[in-house]
């Protein structure tokens, strides 16, 4: 469905994208996870044809080049910036972008109504966008990308700066779009979003793809071991086979099978007042790959 091959893009002295390749299957949600400035937006801009590649190629669907109008007609793009007209109402914004994609008459009315319903703005459709909250604008931004019913969606950080309620609504809608069989490329610097929404994830930093795969394979390959912290209820029994060290009544150890190890300890007479198991996540993956956390960058 989507094929990006060895994409390279340079802005003056900065190599924004340095040989990124990936493919996305139909109906798949593909995440580009990385800190700000990693090259995610540049990658999407190349995918949608807003920028020309220095080298490499992008193929979307059967026809290929996203600069071909027929290919663009099949792409819905929600840019990171809120690309909306503040002096128009929500409905007028959706209508306008629908018309640009050739919709008219009853089809336009139906699609506009459907997307505004989808993002929960039906009640506010007649209000000017200038009166919307940040979350509502984000949702309208998404609606305008969906109004022409595209099979491919490119969403550039669609939850930046929104309230938790709007964020959850956007998550729900993207999941429903996924169930409808749409192909989605989703950029974010929030690992929780990537973990929740994406079938496969690419870790991007400094314009390079550091790792790619589904969540489990990324964790397995780059996440490291789980960390167990257990505080004893009473003094720990003498046990020469402890998997870790005890300090101030707390046992701490790393394990590939933390639950099995904890069960074995309980069976052998260890009694814990609290137990905490820190499984590796994408934050850990990014830390292991770059030496930095996503939040540091």
């Amino acid at each position, binding site marked *: 469905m989507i094929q990006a091959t060895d994409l390279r893009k340079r802005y003056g002295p900065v190599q924004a994208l340095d040989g990124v390749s990936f493919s996305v299957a139909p109906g798949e949600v593909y995440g580009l996870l990385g800190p700000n400035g990693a090259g995610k937006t540049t990658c999407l801009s190349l995918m*949608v*044809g*807003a920028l020309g590649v220095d080298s490499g190629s992008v193929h979307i669907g059967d026809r290929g080049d996203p600069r071909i*109008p*027929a290919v*663009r*007609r099949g*792409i819905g*793009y929600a*840019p990171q*910036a*809120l*690309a*909306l*007209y503040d*002096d*128009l109402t929500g409905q*007028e914004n959706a209508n*306008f*972008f629908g*018309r*640009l*994609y*050739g919709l*008219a008459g009853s089809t336009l009315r139906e699609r506009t109504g459907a997307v505004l319903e989808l993002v929960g703005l039906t009640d506010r459709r007649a209000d*000017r966008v200038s009166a919307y909250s940040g979350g509502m604008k984000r949702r309208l931004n998404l609606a*305008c990308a969906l109004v022409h019913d595209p099979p491919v969606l490119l969403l550039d950080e669609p939850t930046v700066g929104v309230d938790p309620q709007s964020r959850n609504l956007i998550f729900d809608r993207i999941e429903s779009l996924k169930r409808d069989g749409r192909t989605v490329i989703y950029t974010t610097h929030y690992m929780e979003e990537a973990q929740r929404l994406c079938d496969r994830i690419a870790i991007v930093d400094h314009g390079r793809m550091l790792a790619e795969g589904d969540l489990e394979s990324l964790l397995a390959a780059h996440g490291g071991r789980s960390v167990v912290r257990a505080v004893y209820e009473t003094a720990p029994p003498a046990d020469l086979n402890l998997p870790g060290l005890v300090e101030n009544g707390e046992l701490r150890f790393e394990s590939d099978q933390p639950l099995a190890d904890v069960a074995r300890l309980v069976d052998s007479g260890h009694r814990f007042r609290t137990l905490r198991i820190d499984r590796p996540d994408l934050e850990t993956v990014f830390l292991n790959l770059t030496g930095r956390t996503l939040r540091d960058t």
Partner: protein
Amino acid sequence: MSAVWAVAMKDLLILVRDRFGLFWVAVFPLLMALFFGSIFGSSGSGARGLRIGFIGTGDSTSVAKFRAALDKADAVTLDDMPLDSARSLVARGKKTAFVHFIDTASGGMGFFGPGKPAIEIGIDPARKTEAGYLEGLVNQAYFSLVADQMARPNDMRSMIQEQLGQLDSTTIESDPERERVGRLLENLDVFLASVDTAQAQGDSTGMGAQSPFAQPNIKVEQITVAQAAPKSSWEITFPQSLQWALIGVAAAFAVGLVVERRNGTLLRLRLAPISRFQILAGKGLACFIAAVSASALLLGIGILVFGVRVTSWPGLLLSVACAAYCFVGLMMFISVLGRTEQAVAGAGWAILLVMSMTGGGMVPLFMMPSWMFKLGSISAVKWSVLAMEGAIWRGFSPADMMLPLGVLVGIGTAGLAVGTFILARSD
């Protein structure tokens, strides 16, 4: 075409929703037209030309007669005042000049011989034109009194008898001169006696047309100058102020294009399955429609409310269309002069204000000095004003209209080409 129309309608809707922008496009130009129209209108009908201080000394009857004769001239306004005040006001530039009429003779003006009135005019030597004009008016007033007196032979004879009686006590020192004046007055008295008799036989009024001293019967035939002229000040100020509407439209859309770039909506437009040409055509169409609508609104008010008369409707329609096209091109050019709203707004208003100043948007073209009129040839505003005035009151023929319309189309096309080229490169 539907995409072009969609972009145009969207831009027009945004313009209409922006009350501040709408003020500059529609309300401000109308206020300008009314303001300048009122100024030019009142200066044409109410104000009078030379403000003159008047001082009368001596015989009050002759002073009053002379003052009345001088005051008949529309070009002067007389204010009575003492001589010192008059000198002071002229010296300070508060009065154009003063006229001092002195008639010390008693019993009427003596036009021959001793005791005839004296007239002083005080005026700045730099005011050569006004001085010459005022001297002419003073002479006209004085000789109208002489002619008036001569048209009444009986009164004239009484005056001559009185002057003959005074000859002995005059200051004329030389006997030959006294003799010559005496002989002139005696002969004149004899002549007037014969005229008086002839009149008594044929004309009971005593001031008939047969009198040799009757003023010539001057008939004034009013012939309108063939050269075209505006019928009212509104015919000047409406085309002039309409330029502010065009300037406002061009500035508003130029800034609007930058806002679209900054907000990312222009990118979104570019990612839609429409060409760059369609996007720019839509924006140009919106600007064109706004410019034509603003022009139609102002001209409509001018025609329906203020009686602006159009000599050529096809010429006016073409002028409005070509001017609107020209300002669409300027809009496109201005929109690429900066990357921020502030930069584009600053550059745009600077360019458009200079165009307006040199092109007749502030000072009417016919009031401009020749060097400024020539300098204005680089301004789209001048050609726009000229084309509209050509259709409203200058009576331009189709051939006359070709030059301003051609220049407007040329400027518009150049602006479109340069603006589109730079915009494409910056993308």
